[in-house]
């Protein structure tokens, strides 16, 4: 059983400075791999489609020397869409990691707290009213924030919120939004229903502006990384965290606000994309570590890559028919996750 890690500290001490760089490498091994994988995924997303492009053509176009058509395909269609997909995958995974610690529940995902429900109801209202794309985006974000405030206010109440109380409040509010969504779908006119369903299933075909969501992703990642170590402590329970020098109340509010903003952004860009926020955090835990200093960046990168691949598949598999990306994430995610789970049980 004994390996170098289990030797007593006294023996390890002097050698630690020699060993340390390698353990840091091992810790971030997956991160390094994902840093390579991410551009590969993006290249794939740029090259596949009704107008296939080779790597050299993409490279030339990115450098500014491609044909007009190539330029249009990459800069107006594929690049913004691929970057949006990456941002959405990263945002959902980050929100999933944060909410799983906040609720200390492995089944928590970004949609469990009703944020996506609120965003969906407001988006469907905008669709019913025949609003423009800009208004749709804006109202979805507002809906997410409204839901966040409702859940927070109700869960907080007079006494402090326990994870169970917060979870139950979120689930019930989400159910309420679900009823409203069904109602809106029922009374919607026939030509609106298809757009609504696509929005509800998660769809990136209208994503033209990846910049805001990418900026929010980077800011949220920095924010989450600052208290990544505190997340490790909070995962051991609130009382333990308090005795180990974490202010649980402040940390919980920070997690809640960041997770909500991140989820609302993702929902605004892509609608409800199933499974990514639930599966990617667990997958990352199985592949690397449950230490949040490693888990947080890995989950964001893995989620981003996963989403880019899923979206590329969504727009090409049955081309010219475009599938909602949420269907693909479920198709890929569920078996992949079950496989990883099964493998980890055996070992």
């Amino acid at each position, binding site marked *: *059983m*004994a*390996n170098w*890690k*289990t030797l*007593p*500290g*006294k023996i*390890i*001490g002097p050698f*630690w*400075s020699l060993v*340390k760089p390698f353990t*840091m490498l091992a810790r971030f091994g997956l991160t390094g791999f994902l840093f390579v994988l991410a551009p590969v995924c993006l290249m794939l997303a740029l090259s596949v489609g009704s107008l296939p492009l080779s790597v050299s053509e993409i490279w030339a176009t990115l450098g500014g020397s491609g044909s007009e058509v190539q330029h249009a395909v990459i800069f107006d269609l594929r690049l913004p869409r691929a970057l949006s997909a990456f941002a959405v995958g990263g945002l959902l995974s980050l929100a999933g990691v944060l909410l*799983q*610690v906040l609720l*200390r*529940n*492995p089944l928590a995902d970004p949609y469990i707290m009703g944020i996506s429900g609120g965003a969906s109801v407001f988006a469907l209202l905008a669709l019913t009213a025949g609003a423009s794309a800009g208004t749709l985006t804006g109202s979805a974000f507002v809906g997410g924030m409204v839901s966040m405030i409702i859940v927070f206010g109700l869960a907080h109440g007079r006494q402090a919120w326990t994870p169970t109380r917060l979870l139950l409040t979120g689930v019930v509010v989400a159910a309420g939004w679900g009823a409203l969504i069904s109602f809106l779908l029922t009374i919607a006119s026939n030509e609106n229903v298809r757009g609504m369903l696509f929005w509800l299933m998660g769809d990136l075909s209208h994503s033209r502006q990846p910049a805001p969501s990418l900026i929010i992703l980077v800011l949220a990642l920095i924010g989450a*990384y*600052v*208290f*990544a*170590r*505190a997340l*490790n*402590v909070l*995962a*051991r*329970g609130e*009382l*333990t965290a*308090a*005795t*180990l*020098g*974490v*202010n649980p109340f402040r940390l919980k509010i920070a997690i809640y606000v960041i997770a909500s903003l991140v989820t609302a952004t993702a929902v605004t860009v892509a609608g409800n994309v199933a499974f990514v926020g639930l599966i990617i955090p667990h997958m990352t*835990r199985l592949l690397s570590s*449950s*230490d949040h*200093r490693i888990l947080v960046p890995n989950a964001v990168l893995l989620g981003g890559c996963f989403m880019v691949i899923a979206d590329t598949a969504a727009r090409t598999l049955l081309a010219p028919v475009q599938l909602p990306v949420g269907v693909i994430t479920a198709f890929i995610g569920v078996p992949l996750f079950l496989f990883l789970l099964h493998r980890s049980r055996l070992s």
Partner: protein
Amino acid sequence: MSLLATENLTLAAGPTTLCRDLTVQFHEGENWAILGANGSGKTTLLHTLAGLRPAESGIVLLRQTEISRFRHIERAKQLGLLLQQSETVFPATVMETVLTGRHPYVSDYFWRSIWQWESQRDYQLAHECLQQLQLSGMSERRIDTLSGGEKRRVEIATLLAQDPAICLLDEPNNELDLNFQLKILSLFQQRTLKPEHLNIMVLHDVNLALRFCSHAILLFPEGTARYGKISELLNTETLEQLYQCPFHCLSDDKRTVYLPGN
């Protein structure tokens, strides 16, 4: 000068008053036992002493300063708490868990909290703590693969890695075999030989309390509390009153033992 003290502390759980106007001073080198029946407020008192919950009235003083005025991180360097039970929803490895005990030191400064990795010294300390609890070979095991007693020892190792001057222990013997019960209590007793160290523990075993503790707080069912030197405090009559059951006292020239029941 007391390390920890309470002034006119009143605690309640719902409508029941657990203790009234408790004023105690805890000094360095002392080992305190908190004894009482189920629901008499032992854990509530311990959590209040740890600053985890506000008292119904009265204050807790940590080094003459009200405990709520400490930053969490400063408090964690002074005072540690072993909880009665722990949650493990997302199981980490033994080593990762013990290293969370170093959190108050690693996250000391903001710049360190961004590049927040444990130093070589933190690892060394964690290894030593694991060694003390005979867990050396298990540092890479996942917590959820351990037995109940091993998990308990990991939690104790985490508290030792935190290395606070004041240890508050909520039933430290939970799930431990008899050998480890003795080992761990004497380990904590030895810590109080160092200057400015103090232990306060909730125990259910009166005889272990007599053996390892110098002082005791007794929480009686009707909401009164008595405290003082444990040898002067404990006798058959008091214990019968405390636990509402008969006790039998056996003693030889070395020690006194109380047996519950007739």
